[in-house]
């Protein structure tokens, strides 16, 4: 296995199971409260927050318009600093490049900082299959790696896992430790993970990180973390590999600084993450630390094909997770139900571009279009509009379920013929109103079981407003 198994076509079944899981529901309750309150507070504390969102959007929009120029400039700067840039068209190419670097370095173990691109390309599975052991060093990623899972949230990958489950996992895997040790507190779990990982940091031959920004002006990669694991991953091993997708490019340090001001506030409600680390090339003579080799694997994997299309806006995404933190559907079902790597509203837009709308088609449909995601997106990505574009593409390609299509067409037939519509609706509502007059509602209705399975169907009042209005006009 080289990549996460795609279960997006089973979205409804996934969601059903998720809604029946009390631990997951409890975890989602925490997301619903904590992330939202903290972001709201952070935004309220910064008077220029909304203006910064505009600036951040404009920086990325500008960058995407000139992406080729900035990518070339970035590559030049990385090379000047003594680093290597590798271009990867797709997941396979990226995996092979990383494996090749590992083999040349004679690596048996690689440490990894948190990277969604690594999840997207299935890097861990690929390395394992080729005799290289990857070790995730972000606590959440470490936990889900032990559990063999995909992340359920893009910044809090193990948000679905509760403390007791972490303890059970640590006891299962860390068998060399005292079985009687006390792991009842989160701090003891953290300490144990730290102890385990410390040895891995020292033993690793290659360190792999993602990047929150790639700065064209300087050839610098930037990571933001809260645990410091990213720094140890990229400084201690002899070789540092950065894997990032094309749209991480930002023109200048100043631009990155502006976007950083909305990133952590939108994500966790922090003003800044605990660590913001800038890496430019390998260790220079006289540097106290740093890797001997510095590689950047630049992944396309469908991004360039999004440029110039209605999905280009999605390339502004900085992976803060605010959209899913504020999504009522995500709160109801959690991240795994989406069936692949990227959940929530950003996943609903991005996933179909990466795995195909045939497999990911449920995702952009499973939204109420409440618009809360767009209202908090620091990059002002019109997420509902982009989901709607997927629905349009599905409709054009006749991927929309036949019953839905038929219902729409029938509705549209009447809605474009007002006289016929008035006649038909008068009869229909008169009948329904008569049938429902006793109780005022229906517990079940033919053709409306999708509604009445979960809620009563209120009965209509019986006449239509248009009929009543016409009567008033005649009486006048």
């Amino acid at each position: 296995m080289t990549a996460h198994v795609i279960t997006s076509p089973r979205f409804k079944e996934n969601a059903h199971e998720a809604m029946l899981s009390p631990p997951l529901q409890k975890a989602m309750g925490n997301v619903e409260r904590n992330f939202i309150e903290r972001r709201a507070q952070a935004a309220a504390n910064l008077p220029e927050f909304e203006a910064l969102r505009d600036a951040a959007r404009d920086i990325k929009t500008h960058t995407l318009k000139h992406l080729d120029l900035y990518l070339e400039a970035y590559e030049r700067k990385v090379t000047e600093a003594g680093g290597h840039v590798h271009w990867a068209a797709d997941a396979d190419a990226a995996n092979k490049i990383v494996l090749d670097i590992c083999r040349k370095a004679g690596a048996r173990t690689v440490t990894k900082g948190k990277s969604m691109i690594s999840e997207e390309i299935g890097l861990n599975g690929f390395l394992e299959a080729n005799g290289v052991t990857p070790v995730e060093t972000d606590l959440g990623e470490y936990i889900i790696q032990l559990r063999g899972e995909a992340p359920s949230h893009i910044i809090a990958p193990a948000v679905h896992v509760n403390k007791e489950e972490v303890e059970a996992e640590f006891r299962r895997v860390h068998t060399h430790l005292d079985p009687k040790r006390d792991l009842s507190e989160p701090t003891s779990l953290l300490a144990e993970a730290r102890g385990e990982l410390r040895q891995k940091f020292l033993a690793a031959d290659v360190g792999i990180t993602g990047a929150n920004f790639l700065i064209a002006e300087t050839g610098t990669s930037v990571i933001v973390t809260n645990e410091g694991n990213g720094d140890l991953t990229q400084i201690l091993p002899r070789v540092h590999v950065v894997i990032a997708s094309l749209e991480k490019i930002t023109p200048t340090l100043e631009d990155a600084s502006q976007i950083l001001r909305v990133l952590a506030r939108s994500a966790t409600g922090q003003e800044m993450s605990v660590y913001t680390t800038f890496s430019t090339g390998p260790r220079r003579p006289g540097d106290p630390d740093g890797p001997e080799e510095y590689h950047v694997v630049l992944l396309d994997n469908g991004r360039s094909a999004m440029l110039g299309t209605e999905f280009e806006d999605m390339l502004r995404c900085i992976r803060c997770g605010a959209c899913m933190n504020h999504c009522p559907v995500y709160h109801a079902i959690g991240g795994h139900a989406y069936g692949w790597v990227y959940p929530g509203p950003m996943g609903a837009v991005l996933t179909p571009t990466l795995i195909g709308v045939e497999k990911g088609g449920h995702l952009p449909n499973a939204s109420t279009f409440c618009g809360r995601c767009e209202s908090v997106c620091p990059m002002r990505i019109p997420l509902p509009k982009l989901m709607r574009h997927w629905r349009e593409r599905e409709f054009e390609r006749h991927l929309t379920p036949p019953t839905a299509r038929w219902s729409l067409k029938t509705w549209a037939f009447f809605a474009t013929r007002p006289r016929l519509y008035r006649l038909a609706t008068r009869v229909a509502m008169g009948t329904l109103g008569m049938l429902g007059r006793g109780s005022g509602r229906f517990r079940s209705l033919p053709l409306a079981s999708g509604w009445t399975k979960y809620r009563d169907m209120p009965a209509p009042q019986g006449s239509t407003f248009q009929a009543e209005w016409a009567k008033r006009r005649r009486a006048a």
Partner: protein
Amino acid sequence: MTPTGTGPRVALFVTCLVDLYRPTVGWAAVKLLEDAGCTVEVPAAQTCCGQPAYNSGDKADAKAIAEGVIRAFEGYDFVVAPSGSCAGMIKAHYGELFQDDPNWSPRADALSAKTFELVSFLTDVLGVSAVDARHSGTVTYHDSCSGLRELGIKAQPRALLATVDGLSLRDLPDAEVCCGFGGTFCVKYGEISDKIVSKKTANVALSGADTLLAGDLGCLLNMAGKLKRQGSAVEVRHVAEVLAGMADGPAIGEARKGGKTVA
């Protein structure tokens, strides 16, 4: 009775749900507009704003329906709908729907510019600051998503409700969170919709109000349907009914006087 206002000529876009389900809301809108001095007309050639087709990816049918709306409504001073969702469709989405159509685009934009949701039209355009109505009881208000986020409707209904005699307004926890309706979403993903609306009804109970109000009939049918299924005694109404003093008939999903309580 003929329209009597001396103010602007307002075309009521009654919306398909109000037309078919709850004419009372349409009459409440007419009363509120006429009380504010408008001449209200109801163009006969109206059906639906096209949103179900638009949000289902059926752009061709959405356009065909929208063209009918534009033709029927463009001759008036204002277009007003007792719904943030339908007004939002015309105001925020018609422009995009016709952006590549040089013939329809200016007409769509012109219609968008003069289309408003009922309550915000009363307060923001007509400057209405109080209504002449009485309603005894405690009410709470749910912010429907389109009205809130596309049209900025939040303070307006609460401001007018505060002027209703005898009414006490309670905060609804998470009032800005979606009720799970989402148009066709509520049947396509019924189980998820149910989970979301169940959180809403729990919050309604926490509010302690005896009446739940909102400005969109879709959300109201969803919330009323769930409350009634759960056996809740909370009454559910469109905010216009209360503002117009027309909340004396059966609430949404309630039996008419003398009817049975369960089918």
